[in-house]
């Protein structure tokens, strides 16, 4: 279904949601950065900048509690966290490269083990995407088969129109429900042109060819030269909309504490460190290889999807200028 909405109505809609007690998350200025954060009012919404971190944390928080424990005498008492407590949330202004990562995450979190924490949040969330009209030199969604107005993952997709306002397309049942709930705010499309979409500079990559090379080159000296500069931080993984590795740790004291789940990154030297002290990925090139392999081969093998949406965040934040698009181009040329 297609509708359109004026800028003013969009803001009214957000404020209405907030008034209703709904949690609304969208890009907002937070200190020096734009981040996806709960909005206090529609005026918080920032639509002209890609947030520094991706939307994945709405379903897969930086850190969350899984359970609480308490010990007394010889007794141990456990208390689970109830996922039903997660609030209904509307995500506004999600970029297509972020929204597209959500179905990718769905696959892994609902695979053999159903991650109740992820899925509960996911079920209670409506994603309202926003197509891009500008791109910088790190953007490369078009190179990995997506586009600046790709509807993947969005329940509703907004596309800016010439002269203001947005064209709105529903992409799912949740989107339809949202339309019907808030029908007063939307109007039928009047044929106004949408603005020209962003045009990322990088040419489309041949992901099949890249995967074919990866299939055969687990051992290859190229990894050394590609990854020699990697210093092993987790910046790329943490800003990535699709990376989803996590660790679990008990925090607190002998007497009481909490079990927590928090982001982990395959670049960390301790990521695959065994209790024995042995580490199969003992050097950085092996870790970086895993990053590329996981994104463009393993995930594809298992779920038929690529674990990269071309948002370019990792390129922007990498301390040592590693450019995943450049790496892919290099592999494609081999």
């Amino acid at each position, binding site marked *: 279904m297609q509708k359109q909405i004026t800028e003013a109505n969009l803001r009214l809609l957000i404020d209405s949601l907030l008034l209703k007690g709904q949690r609304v998350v969208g890009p907002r200025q937070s200190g020096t950065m734009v981040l996806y954060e709960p909005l206090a009012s529609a005026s918080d919404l920032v639509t002209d900048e890609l947030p520094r971190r991706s939307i994945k944390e709405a379903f897969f928080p930086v850190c969350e509690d899984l359970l609480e424990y308490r*010990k*007394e*005498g*010889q007794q141990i008492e456990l208390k689970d966290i109830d996922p039903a407590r997660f609030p209904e949330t509307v995500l506004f202004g999600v970029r297509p490269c972020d929204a597209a990562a959500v179905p990718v995450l769905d696959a892994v979190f609902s695979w053999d083990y159903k991650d109740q924490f992820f899925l509960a949040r996911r079920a209670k969330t409506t994603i309202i995407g926003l197509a891009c009209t500008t791109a910088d030199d790190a953007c490369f969604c078009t190179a990995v088969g997506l586009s600046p107005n790709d509807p993947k993952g969005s329940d509703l997709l907004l596309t800016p129109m010439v002269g203001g306002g947005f064209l709105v397309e529903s992409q799912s049942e949740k989107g339809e429900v949202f339309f019907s709930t808030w029908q007063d705010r939307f109007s039928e499309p009047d044929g106004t042109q949408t603005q020209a979409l962003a045009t990322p500079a990088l040419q489309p990559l041949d992901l099949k060819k890249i995967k074919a090379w990866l299939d055969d080159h687990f051992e290859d000296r190229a990894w050394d030269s590609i990854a020699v500069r990697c210093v092993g931080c987790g910046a790329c993984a943490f800003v990535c909309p699709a990376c989803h590795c996590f660790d679990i740790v008990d925090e*607190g*004291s*002998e*007497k009481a504490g909490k079990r927590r789940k928090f982001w982990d990154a395959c670049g960390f030297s301790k990521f695959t460190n065994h209790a024995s*002290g042995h580490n199969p990925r003992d050097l950085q090139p092996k870790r970086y290889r895993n990053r590329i392999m996981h994104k463009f081969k393993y995930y594809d093998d298992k779920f038929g999807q690529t674990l990269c949406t071309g948002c370019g965040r990792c390129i922007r934040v990498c301390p040592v200028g590693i450019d995943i698009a450049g790496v892919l181009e290099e592999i494609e040329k081999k």
Partner: protein
Amino acid sequence: MSRIGVFICHCGENISRTVDVEQVAAQAAKMPGVAFATDYKYMCSDPGQNLVKNAIAEHRLTQVVVAACSPRMHERTFRKAVEQAGLNPFLCEMANIREHCSWVHEDREEATQKAIEIVGMLVERVKKNRVLPTITVPVTKRALVIGGGIAGIQAALDIADAGHQVVLVEREPSIGGHMAQLSETFPTLDCSQCIMTPKMVDVANHPNITLHTFSEIEQVDGYIGNFQVTVRKKARSVDEHKCTGCGVCMTKCPQKKIPNSFDCNLGMRTAIYVPFPQAVPNVPVIDRENCTMFKTGKCGVCQKVCGPGAVDFEQQDQLIVEPVGAIVVATGFELYRITEKPKGSPIKGYGEFGHGKIPDVIDGMTFERLASASGPTGGKILRPSDGKEPKQVVFIQCVGSRSREKGISYCSKVCCMYTAKHTMLYHHKVHDGQAYVFFMDARVPGKSYDEFWRRAIEDEEAVYIRGMVSRLYQKEDKIVVMGSDISVGVQVEIEADLVVLATAVQPQKGADGLAQKLGISYDKYNFYSEAHAKLRPVECATAGIYLAGACQGPKDIPDTVSQASAAAAKVMTLFAKDKLEREPIVARVKENGCVGCFACKKVCAYGAVEEKEIRDRQGNLIKTVAYVNPGVCAGCGTCQATCPSKSVELDGYTDEQIVAMIEAL
């Protein structure tokens, strides 16, 4: 899970009066990991200890917390009891609920609550305690004594007499040190050489003493009980085993005009020489800098006249490795030189005393040689410039000493006494002469010392002037000494024939270098530091190294000999056991995490941290890590707090134990 036993002591009523011990026991029983908790009237008594021992067996306890008095009081008692019950003693901790609780608080409720919390902290701590085995270190019962002055000689003889092997190393060609240079000694005025030379001979003849003269310490490895000391035996050019000490070489040597430093350069010696006639060993040494043979390649007279063929121009320095278990450092002192302003040292020199350019301004040791019957003048007091007998002699005390502006703030301790002695010796030898002494104040404590000083003034007519000399200068054949007498507030000017400066006592040159080799600490003047100024005055902080004599601070002969014997006694205490046992509270390096930044080594006051290479099976160096020598580590844990990755851990005070206590709060 742990099965901890908690034992609450009433200490008669000392604890139970303010702490509800039953409630503490009841609360302790609920703490996670506690399997048994009880209280008892006197836990340290035999029945109390048996209660602990029985409970360990009955309740299969894995750790024990005794809540009673200070661990400083009874930790040993309970650890021993626990050990008797079959647990490692370090699995027992004490919670101090007496000194830190019942005795200092009156409110029963508050005190009880605090006692419960203290017990809780120790319960958490003891869970993280590890079994610690006692550390034993083998002991090589052989001592090294560095320095052959009276301190080194005394220490060597004492240790050797106790039946242990001693290696005595002396830098000069002969042992004897400064005491051999002295004429008479205070306060008895007995002849120094008469009491010194028999001891030197004893050293030479002692079956347990190996003597290396003309030798220096090259390198020191190892630790208490197990040092490996490399001694450089400098080329003497005379074979010690062949030489008979007949002295013909010296009489025939054509180089006869070399100033003899033993005589403070007043007398002359040959190029092949013994520093003084009573030298031990009585084996000459060739001074290669002044020997014609070494300078020009022509001469060789000594070699030709030597019957036993002992002269060996080809001799090389020899490196000898001596394994020893203990080291006594007795390197002595030297006198402050008014001419010198050593770089990097606080010493500033004495321009106002002529910078040493006036020949008749001499130091105390030079005066000793003038007064010595075996000295260059045969015991006559004759001034260096023209050999005349001085009729007016000015002695100036505290030259260098106690003078912050000149760089030395300490008192040299011996000068007041030896200056008094000098005035007497002078008066005895030059009956019509007059001695003047400029002094700040007289520091003469000690048995018969004050009497001795008074005698110099009252019987021997020395004139003591309280005040400092501001300047002195040569005027024809006199030295004009300008000073002030502050007791009467007038300027004084004396035309002296000879001026004797009581210059400060300083450590030997190179004392800092030797300290670095030994890994011992020293103060800003390079005096070696004792482990504790009062309670461990002869031990270095570095285990197995002891101090004797003036290398540790200015001392007179009686103090030096006392300290030398004390150091020897410490060595004998160490040697009384075959193995050294010590509490296993030492730091341990976790080599996995260590990256070899050696911050631990930098902060270790004991030199316990060594560098250790880790190699793979092919012998390739993987990394260099720190290694803490358990024989040397004192267990302060400064290394651990300094280590950024916490790769060194102090047993008994691990991070786990401490964090557990904090988290129990």
